């Protein structure tokens, strides 16, 4: 029997269910990192709850030895909102993918961020539909050939970070499944954020979209092709830490490391974060990972319960008698 106050280990968070992702799937690394950082948070296992929708990533809750709800396609944000507002004490984590979160569930995804429900959201982005076997997704690049786009997809992909920023998300970050250290520090920052925290994770689908992120995420090019947004630190990148970013007019430009701007994730406006998020549309610019935005905002789950407490404090806790015997009444003898 485990003691409630004994520190958790990664092993404590593994459920007894066999993990059934494809061999080599990026999901394994994410599961491992999540279990790793959660064990160190000091939150007891029974206070943790994982919610998901439908898709490969959404099997995640079954593998966590915590409370878990595997729900229906796209609706995880709504379930998570119900759970967190019903019991704000729980540490609620939501796992979704680019199809589940941005296609069928795009509506709910927007609203959980807008409302700032204190839920940690892990968006596994593999730019393809996995569980339905390889159709293009809302993040697939234009021209991608799949069974439903044999002549190439004519859709323009959406950028999950820009979308989240547009929804007014209070915490937005991006990381890469193969970059364990970065993933863990990003997940940890999300875990400590009070409010809705979105982490987009570039996740490799070995079967239907293998190597989708290799041009930026492959180890040998990663340092030159990505830039880690670290609040309070200069925007420096490159293997030799020799290049930097500086805002030049409306857009960031590459400069010498010494001239780099210092990154701030808590500007009053999400404008600078947008500029970073959209940087990939400019040729030759590095792909930003790390923390785009981290600001304080009122918590929806807290607000809902606080109104109840305030009403009770003001009017007194209503009883059945108060409820029924109200309004204009009369007596028949």
């Amino acid at each position, binding site marked *: *029997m485990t003691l*409630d106050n004994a520190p958790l280990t990664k092993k404590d968070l593994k*459920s007894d*269910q066999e993990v059934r992702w494809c061999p080599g799937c990026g999901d394994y690394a994410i599961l491992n990192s999540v279990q790793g950082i959660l064990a160190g948070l000091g939150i*007891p*296992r*029974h*206070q943790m*709850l*994982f919610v998901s929708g*439908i898709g490969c990533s959404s099997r995640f*809750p*079954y593998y*966590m030895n915590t*409370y*878990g*709800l*595997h*729900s*229906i396609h796209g*609706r995880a944000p*709504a*379930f*998570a*909102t*119900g*759970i967190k*507002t*019903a*019991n704000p*004490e*729980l540490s609620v984590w939501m796992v979704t993918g680019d199809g589940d979160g941005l296609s069928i569930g795009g*509506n*709910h995804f*927007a*609203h959980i961020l807008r409302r700032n429900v204190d839920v940690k959201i892990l968006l596994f982005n593999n730019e393809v539909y996995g569980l339905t076997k390889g159709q293009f997704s809302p993040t697939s690049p234009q021209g991608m050939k799949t069974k439903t786009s044999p002549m190439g997809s004519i859709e323009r992909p959406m950028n999950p970070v820009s979308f989240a920023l547009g929804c007014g998300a209070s915490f937005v970050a991006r990381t890469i499944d193969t970059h364990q250290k970065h993933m863990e520090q990003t997940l940890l920052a999300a875990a400590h954020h009070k409010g809705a925290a979105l982490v987009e994770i570039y996740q490799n689908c070995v079967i239907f979209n293998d190597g989708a992120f290799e041009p930026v995420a492959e180890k040998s090019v990663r340092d030159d092709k990505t830039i880690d947004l670290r609040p309070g630190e200069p925007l420096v990148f490159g293997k030799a830490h020799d290049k930097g970013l500086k805002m030049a007019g409306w857009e960031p430009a590459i400069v010498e490391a010494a001239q780099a701007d210092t990154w701030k994730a808590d500007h009053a406006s999400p404008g600078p974060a947008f500029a970073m998020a959209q940087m990939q549309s400019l040729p030759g610019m590095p792909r930003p990972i790390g923390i785009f935005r981290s600001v304080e905002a009122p918590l929806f789950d807290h607000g*809902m319960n606080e109104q*109840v407490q*305030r*009403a*009770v404090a*003001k*009017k*007194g*806790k*209503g*009883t*059945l*008698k108060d*409820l*029924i*015997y*109200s*309004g*204009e*009444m*009369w*007596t*028949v*003898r």
Partner: protein
Amino acid sequence: MSTTRASNAELPLQQYENVVIRFAGDSGDGMQITGNQFTHTAAVLGNDLATFPDFPAEIRAPAGTKPGVSGFQVRFSSSDIHTPGDQPDVLVAMNPAALAINIKDLKPGGIVIANTGQFAERDLAKAGLASNPLTDGSLKAFRVIEVDINQRVKEALEGSPLSPKEVQRCKNFYTLGLMYWLYNRPLENTLKWLGEKFASKPDLRDANQKALQAGFNAGDIHELFQGRYDVKPCTSMPPGTYRNIMGNEALAMGLVAGTELAGLTLYCGSYPITPASGILEQLASYKNYGVLTFQAEDEIAAICAAIGASYAGHLGMTSTSGPGMALKSEAMGLAVSLELPLVIVDVQRGGPSTGLPTKTEQADLLQAIFGRNSEAPIPVLACSMPADAFETAIEACRIAVQYMTPVILLSDGYIANGSEPWRLPKVEELQRFPVQFLTKAPEGGFLPYARDAKRARPWVKPGTPGLEHRIGGIEKSHLTGNINYDPLNHEFMVRMRNDKVMGVRDSIPTPKPMGPDSGDLLVLGWGSTAGSIASAVEVVQAKGKKVAAMHLPHVWPLPKGLDTIFARYKAVLLPEMNLGQMARILRSEYPGVNFVSYPKVQGQPFFTAELVTKIEELLQTKR
């Protein structure tokens, strides 16, 4: 001036057993408020009553046109009544469109009170009338009383700081005052209500109170009427404390009460939709009862949040109407699979699709019982009257928590917006059904899909140490709840879920026929046809016919013992506001019974008279 003739106040009072008034005007004329105030006063005077608000889906269709006409019918009585009445005795028509739309319903010889201030050429044109009904002889069959309410209000409010437009908005209270005079009603209730409603707007308060008083005084001063009428309090109502209640209001209160009786917190996840929005609004005002309300981004999110709340240990509920039910159906299936308590309220309206949003219908029955993919059984209950929505909602909560199942509670537009006196239950007589959460692993270990005598699985609040478990929409192993694709396990679980829901019949009573317990005909109803059926059956019973009425609050599963009841009557008549959906179910459940379906799908409730005709016609052919 007033001394030239005896005051009308001295006219003799004529007693009536019951009166039906219909107020009709533009959507912006405040007819709903007028009707509600009249109702309120009748309630406080101790009349039995029933109301039928009938308004368009458009908030403010072009003024003076037929689509913009809003009506409110109230019937008040010194004897027990079950319906708002088939035909009004009095029609108050604020403009030509209101007159044209409603005159066909008025009883022959009935009274029309017409606001002549709104009958100019252009008003007739807006209503699409070629001639003026007040002068073209088309109202011969009625007693027409012409009052220039526009002008009278203007005179009464001379010197008011309100603009001429605002002054005209007080017309409805002038009209109400006139009706108060005619039916010998006191002004106090409405004066008080206006005082509270416009506490922060003294100009509006004063003007409306003055208009009300002026309307009342006009009855005295002007020679409009030959007499005044009175309807004595209803003495046949059972003793008790009463209040007037609307269906949506009673239903919301029932959910709060049911949750309290279960020892839980109510969590309402809803999305506004006509005619169900009132439930969400009402619950939002019950925060001091601990009620959490979440206005979701759509119908789907609403039910999903409610399911999430139930998983977290609250009693989740969602309220909607037909189109919303369609959107929620996938999530309902998940709730069936998760086996969590949940109450889904469907306030039915005319369909399909957007249909008739503000009109009533009962055509979601089959959707409620069967409208999900695969085998997804859900118990279904139906309210029958505004007041009865309270206890039906409590019953829905009871079944949900005792059987760990979603429950669908059907209401409809007629119940939702109608009102009647409600005999308030004694709090101590409401039966409690406290929920026992599982808080530690039982002997032999914790099994999330183990079952009790009702086949309900344990309910564990996340946050409980040692009982961490995962649930989801994938088929589960019996007992452990782990993912399981085994064919025989699947069939076992499909049957288990069905048996559990069918087992609800072990805890519900067999309904009793009202009237002879055997005979020529049983008139069977469910939902809001209750009032019309009771009224019609009383009429034919008074003529000595062997006809009984019976009502089904539990529509799925059907209660035990119906077969033996049906066997005692030669035929069973089923009036329904759909094409015979319950008849279809009963024919398949009870193949030997002679069911006669009587459908009406007009967005309107059954009239007592049409039911009487139908019953008598059936009795004729039986001979």
